[in-house]
């Protein structure tokens, strides 16, 4: 239980129920993400990880309480939640394949009015992902899976969020690419102080870069704890994380 005097967390989720169409997927979730922290949600397919992220940005019907920066996200449209400072890289990465790489990036920064800062952020993004600079003018559909994931991360960074929701950034990528992507996620978190809520199948990697972890089982939180602790716990590893 958080102490009543404690400053509110960046993201506070309490008693969250959510529905995917007619099916009741989340059955009362409670968790928090602190400012600048990396939190990971683990669990098997269908445990409700993706639905949790989608509830936060208003993509599914939900009840309960979700607060971001102390403000309730109840009845807010996806657009408004995002404009409030949450970047959501969805399942499948949400790349607009009809558009060029540059246009995808521009959609990330199109709401910002701090022109000079935006320019600096572009420079930094191209430093992280030089390949995107080379392919700026190409259609995003020509990128490989790894490059599309880079584009999605770069675009999310250009939104200058306080919180990033990342849905399985490792999905379908070669191990070496996954390593690189996770390095960048760590860098983004540390240099930009962006908090990250990470959904991952690759539990080992996720526990490595996160501070807190929650293991989901059919729409409920089965285990919670510090990532380092969960990583070391033999029985948790075997029964829930499967490695």
């Amino acid at each position, binding site marked *: 239980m958080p102490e009543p005097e404690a400053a509110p967390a960046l993201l506070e989720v309490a008693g969250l129920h959510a529905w995917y169409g007619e099916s009741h997927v989340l059955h009362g979730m409670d968790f928090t993400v602190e400012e600048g922290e990396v939190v990971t949600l683990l669990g098997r397919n269908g445990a409700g990880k993706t639905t949790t992220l989608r509830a936060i940005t208003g993509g599914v019907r939900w009840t309960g309480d979700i607060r971001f920066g102390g403000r309730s996200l109840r009845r807010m449209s996806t657009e408004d939640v*995002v*404009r409030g400072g949450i970047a959501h890289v*969805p399942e499948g990465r*949400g790349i*607009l*394949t*009809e558009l060029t790489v540059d246009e995808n990036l521009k959609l*990330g920064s*199109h709401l910002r009015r701090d022109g000079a800062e935006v320019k600096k952020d572009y420079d930094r993004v191209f430093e992280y992902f030089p390949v995107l600079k080379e392919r700026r003018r190409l259609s995003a559909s020509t990128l490989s899976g790894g490059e599309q994931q880079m584009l999605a991360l770069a675009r999310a960074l250009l939104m200058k969020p306080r919180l990033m929701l990342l849905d399985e950034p490792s999905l379908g990528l070669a191990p070496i690419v996954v390593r690189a992507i996770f390095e960048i996620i760590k860098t983004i978190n540390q240099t930009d102080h962006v908090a990250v809520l990470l959904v991952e199948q690759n539990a080992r990697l996720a526990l490595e870069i996160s501070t807190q972890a929650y293991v989901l089982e059919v729409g409920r939180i089965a285990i919670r704890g510090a990532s380092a602790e969960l990583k070391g716990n033999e029985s948790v590893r075997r029964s829930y994380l499967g490695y």
Partner: protein
Amino acid sequence: MQGLLQQIISGVATGGIFASLALALVLIYNAMGLVNFAQGEMAMLATFVAFTLIDHGMSYWIAFPVALVIAFAGGIAIQRIVIRPVERAPILTMVIVTLGLATLVNGLAGFIFGYVPRSFPSPFSVQTVDILGAFVSYRDLGVIAVSTVVLLAIYLLLQRTTVGLTLRAAAHHPEASRLLGVRVSWMLALGWGLASAVGAVSGIMAAPILLLEPNMMQTIIIYAFAAAVLGGIESPLGAVVGGVIVGVTVNLAGTYLPFVGGDLQLAVALAIIVGVLILKPNGLFGRPSVRRV
């Protein structure tokens, strides 16, 4: 030879009229995956608005942009009031709604303005100028110029501005766009506004040639369908190229094929629609469609 050149230039002018309406169809098709069957009627109503303004003493070149602005606002209003409530309805429902809208607008125009054809002023004279031996009317040149300017403006808006970018994003990937903070619903409304304005250009250009009455656009919309299908129904550039090709083809067929003459020109447009759908369903500029289901 001069005769041929003359017919081609005249066909390009007609094509500009088709292209504007075809572009309107494409803009809405991209926004909601559906052809707006009321597009021609909306253009006709906007033309009546321009007519009324000119009739009350406004100069043509002021009435023209004012009518476009009114058409733009009207397009947005129609999307908000009529289309948005059925946004998530099955496609057939939406088809019926746009057909109903067409009937409604047509009846409304008839009720307010009557069915007597009226002559609509043109700022361009029908006198001809000699271009390489072909006699081309100033009116044709004027229509070509106006269409070019309008189509170019739409192109620049879509390709070179942030609003255009978010508009394209919202049309192609609504869900992903929402997650980037794009107000998708308003972008779709904006698409309707733009389409309505571009369609109005077509109506205002056509009115001096056809005479203004509530059924004026009913053949033009068929040519515009042919143009949009030929160009690839999702491609704005295709709509423009398709419009010009249809305009020239119909004009040449009417002139040089005795059995077509003036009466069967519409049949040529229908033949183009059927031919394209059979031989090259994606049109000249369309991508093979991979539909998300």
